[in-house]
């Protein structure tokens, strides 16, 4: 349980949010030219690291907007929150 500072609504409890997985995964420009392995790599393979990770979150029980956060997966400390389309902060 931890608090997330929604860029639209302000500080709310984590149970109001839904995690949306790793952020900044770019969709391949020509999916038809990819092999099955490369396509699966894009679709399913995620880093799942211990440490600082860039993630997408959705304020599902609030404003229903998507945004990004930088979270340390080992202690749930949130390093930064930024809106969709904004440049991620440099570590």
């Amino acid at each position, binding site marked *: 349980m931890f608090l997330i500072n929604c860029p*639209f*609504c*302000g*500080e*709310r*409890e984590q*149970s*109001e949010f839904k995690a949306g997985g790793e952020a900044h995964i770019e969709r391949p420009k020509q999916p038809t030219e990819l092999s099955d392995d490369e396509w699966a790599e894009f679709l399913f393979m995620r880093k799942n690291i211990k440490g600082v990770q860039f993630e997408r979150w959705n304020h599902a*029980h*609030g*404003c*229903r*907007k998507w945004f990004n956060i930088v979270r340390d997966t080992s202690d749930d400390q949130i390093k930064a929150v930024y809106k969709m389309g904004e440049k991620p902060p440099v570590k």
Partner: protein
Amino acid sequence: MLNYNQTIKDQKSYQGLQMSEKNPVMKLIIRGKKREFLSAVGKSLNMVLPTKANTSTQSEKLTALWLSPDEWMVFSNIVAKENINSYETETLLNKNISKLNLGAVVDVTDQYVQIILKGDKIYDLFEAGSPFNFNEFRNKIGSVTQTIITKVDVIIHNQNQNEVNLFVRRSFSEYLFSWMNDSASRL
């Protein structure tokens, strides 16, 4: 409102807390992003939509709640007539917004149930089942929040000191109301 079935039949009252459903009341969800949308809504409703997060604006007839940067709920302060199924405000907004592709107007009158809570124990009740911090909310009349109470999504509007409007989806309303009664009896 034609054939409106009340989900919450009785008015409950406890020490420092009264709860009842207000019905039927017109409710609309309006969505849009453009600047022309905001000015068109302002002109049609004769009131400004709140652009600041978690706030609301009120005119004599209507109240507008901020739900999201591009989404608002507009509801009537007056109870609707029981034998009519259309609303002046909705027709007007449809003409000035939907028809011109500026945004979307959806009638959610039947979708949401409006519960009015009065008394000085309202926030004690909410705190029993919600993760939201009501400290700032309770002192600022007009503030709005969307949060969860016992896992049910609700929209809460601070109407006045010790008076709160709560909107809940119709299918969850009976459950939420029975939970509130149970919880209120133990405050």
